[in-house]
């Protein structure tokens, strides 16, 4: 070594992280029933609370089906942010109470990451959550973080899936109830469970037509008698074969009997996927939560990092969201030393039928039986069901068939991981961040490997958990130490000296002057 003295590595992260722009004692992400209840409970107990909600979403994300499947079925009104904000306040009257309690309510604000430190991340000065609006991003330091990010749509693709008018149940509900911006009228709903019935009832009550509910099983999965009484047809034993349409959008749903036989079409302008919903765990995953499957077959946060709480649908569907939010806030308050009375923790996930996995797989199998393997499963990266089953390389390569590949062979080599399929096929690697294909790809993998859905390892989530423009994320300035210490690679003085110069006079001359490229 050239020097006996201990030096510091000024290229290392050290204390160079961008500092938090603001702080809150408790940050709540999501102002749905759970998040709102948590924020109000915490504020009433005297905590300093920030409540963050991404509604109203920017038109850009709505157009990308993030975070819900909006399916290009909105009116131009979604581009008017002022009107959208009014709609959100109208649709969510609890926000008014939050404002009155002095909660720092941030609407139209995305939470794109949460960072809490850990064994291989010791450099954080404090736990933080990354926020952004349409123009800039910033960092908020927190003492406790309550994640109440809700649920998103469970999406199945079929032929014509990208025709405007193919929406998810939660996307449709948001367009109708939160934004009053739905531009369809006549809806065919896929599914007959509780979610499908609730969605149909909501649409009828709002003045829209529900032409039919479609079910791959032979019987409806929930009580549909009230819908039948309102003139809704229930079509069992059928799968959606294709969304028929034109440039304007869907004109009909083409249905095929699962057992084979004549297809039939039902005229509609909207096809709504209401087979199921999925807890939104992206932020919890990025924050460092251990993700595990719950009894209802959903991936939910298990062991959480210190100071982080997850509540409502994000923790598992079917809870009493408001009660869960109160319980999460109570736990957070108690851990901060606030004087609170313990609140009963609501039981988990009671509302989902026990055969959720089987039901979802029945839909996947029926869609594959009727629609075949050439249907695109991942729209962003154009990966078909067949590409997944055969583990084909991405289309832009125009490469010959990779002869080593099949899902079955991969399964023989070890546990089947969705992350591996992502890398090989590019499925789930697109700008929608796999919101439209993640569960579907896992189901196709389960079918291809003949293994239980629960054995397919989930693909991890990555920050930013909303696809945000470079120009928005670029808002933060580098700290002075970061500017000074920034290096392309490690900044090791001897690393890039040409080999022939090593051990010559030129070595010292070039040390530290060469750069990686």
């Amino acid at each position, binding site marked *: 070594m050239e020097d006996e003295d201990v030096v510091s590595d000024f290229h290392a992260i050290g204390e160079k992280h961008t500092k938090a722009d603001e702080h809150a004692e408790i940050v709540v992400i999501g102002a749905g029933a759970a998040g709102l209840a948590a924020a109000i409970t915490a504020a009433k107990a005297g905590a300093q609370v920030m409540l963050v909600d991404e509604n109203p979403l920017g038109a850009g994300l709505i157009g990308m089906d993030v975070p819900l499947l909006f399916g290009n079925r909105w009116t131009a009104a979604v581009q008017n942010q002022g009107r959208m904000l009014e709609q959100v306040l109208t649709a969510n009257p609890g926000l008014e109470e939050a404002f009155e309690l002095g909660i720092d309510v941030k609407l139209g604000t995305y939470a794109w990451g949460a960072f809490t430190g850990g064994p291989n991340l010791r*450099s954080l000065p404090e736990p933080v959550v990354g926020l952004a609006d349409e123009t800039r991003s910033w960092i908020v330091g927190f003492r406790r973080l309550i994640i109440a990010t809700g649920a998103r749509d469970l999406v199945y693709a079929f032929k014509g899936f990208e025709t405007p008018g193919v929406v998810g149940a939660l996307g449709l509900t948001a367009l109708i109830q939160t934004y009053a911006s739905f531009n369809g009228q006549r809806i065919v709903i896929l599914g007959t469970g509780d979610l499908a019935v609730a969605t149909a009832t909501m649409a009828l009550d709002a003045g829209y037509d529900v032409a039919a509910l479609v079910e791959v099983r032979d019987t409806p999965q929930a009580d549909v008698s009230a819908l039948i009484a309102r003139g809704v047809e229930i079509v069992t034993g059928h799968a959606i074969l294709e969304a028929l349409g034109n440039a304007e959008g869907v004109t009909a749903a083409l249905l095929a009997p699962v057992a084979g036989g004549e297809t039939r079409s039902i005229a509609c302008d909207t096809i709504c996927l209401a087979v199921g919903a999925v807890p939104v765990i992206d932020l919890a995953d990025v924050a460092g939560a251990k993700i595990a499957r719950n009894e209802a077959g959903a991936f939910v946060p298990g062991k959480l990092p210190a100071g982080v709480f997850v509540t409502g649908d994000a923790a598992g569907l079917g809870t009493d969201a408001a009660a869960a939010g109160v319980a999460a806030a109570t736990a957070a308050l108690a851990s901060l030393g606030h004087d609170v009375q313990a609140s009963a923790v609501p039981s988990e996930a009671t509302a989902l039928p026990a055969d959720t996995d089987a039901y979802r797989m029945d839909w996947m199998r029926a869609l594959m039986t009727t629609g075949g393997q050439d249907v695109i499963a991942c729209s962003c990266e154009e990966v078909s069901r067949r590409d997944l089953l055969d583990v084909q390389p991405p289309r832009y390569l125009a490469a010959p068939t990779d002869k080593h590949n099949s899902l079955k062979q991969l399964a023989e*080599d070890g546990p089947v991981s969705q992350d591996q399929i992502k890398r090989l096929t590019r499925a789930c690697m697109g700008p929608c961040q796999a919101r439209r294909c993640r569960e579907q790809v896992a189901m196709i993998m389960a079918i291809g490997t003949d293994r239980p859905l629960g054995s397919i390892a989930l693909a991890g989530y990555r920050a930013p958990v909303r696809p*945000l423009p470079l120009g928005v994320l670029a808002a933060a300035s580098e700290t002075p130490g*970061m500017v000074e210490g920034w290096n392309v690679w490690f900044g090791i003085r001897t690393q890039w000296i040409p080999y022939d110069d090593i051990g010559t006079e030129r070595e010292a001359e070039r040390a530290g002057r060469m750069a990686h*490229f």
Partner: protein
Amino acid sequence: MSEMKKNASVIVIGGGVTGLSAAWWLARDGVDVLLIEKGIVGWEASGRNGGGCTHYQSPLFNEEQRLWPQMDELLGYPTEHRQERVIMALTERQLAQYQDHGEICAAMGYRYETLDPKQTRELVPFAGDNVVGSVYYHFGGQANPQRTVQAYAWALQDLGGRILQHTAVSSIIVEAGKVKGVETSLGRFDCDHLVLAAGPQTGALLETIGVYLPVAPARAEMIVTEPLPLMKVGGVDGNGLYGRQTLRGNLAYGGGPHEWLADTTADGRPPEGGPMSRPATQLLQNLSRRLMELFPKAGHVRVIRSWAGIIENTPDGRPVIDRLSEPDNLTVTTMSGVGFGLSPATGHAIRDLVMDGVCSFTDIGKLSLGRFANLPRDWRVRQGWVPPIVQDYDSDGRAQTAQA
């Protein structure tokens, strides 16, 4: 399942890009080779990096440049290699430095030219008014790390080489001064020669036979955007970033501060148990800003992912590629964080060491392990390559930073 064959002429530990290439080169010679990987091939830093193939500093540079244009054909699978590289300067000082590098390459017979701002913007449509010029290398380039590691693995299997995934090596077995095999989670495997290319675990595995290889692991981060129309040259960087536009169109870039981590154990598990975590951080904001400065016309492009990888470095940042004298049937490799691009040549060099005892195409004597013989064991502390002071969050949730 049939009875597994528990021996091979050559065992390679580590299914990263270096181990895969070495195994492939050996299989091309008809050697009975078994590659053992604790997880999935190419799963770690080998499969998620900048993909650059332009390493003028290395004695393997000429072989790197010779091989890359042939690799798709040699492997039989696409690596997405694209030749050429543009390095954009945002200051005159950067331009001078890049030209200095260009001259070093020119002296070795590689062609480059300096482009003015207008020429640069014509070649790089996302460049802005802040570019003062660029150097345009008509060599080098970049490839897709994930597809390349997979190509090596399939090519290796095509030649009859075996790959054993999800199998962790716990120790090296030496008897009478020779490596006899390795102990793994599936029991003992015997071999005539062992190649060790286990990335961050390499040092800890060598410790099991009393050989000291100094390496320090660190965490570094990258970001990736949604796809954009393809630029003429995919390998465009500068402004303190390395990276590329992928053939799919995404911009994938990294750079900036790294975080030194605690020493890695032989099985790659952290001391506290559980899988090795690779958390990303809010550094993605800083990377986004650097990338937008590099490509001002891409400010609207959405960032869709970030990730971190764990990289090992030697004290001088240079590789170790060495067939030891004791035991003399053990070849050790670490590329000190610069392994992907050089991998075609590294595999060739390792093949030569294993088969012939000496690298046939260039001198690599200065990359021997022996150069660290007198290194003090506390070298990481002396170089400041130590993990940050542990941040304990008190009941406040705020970090209590211990004052040194």
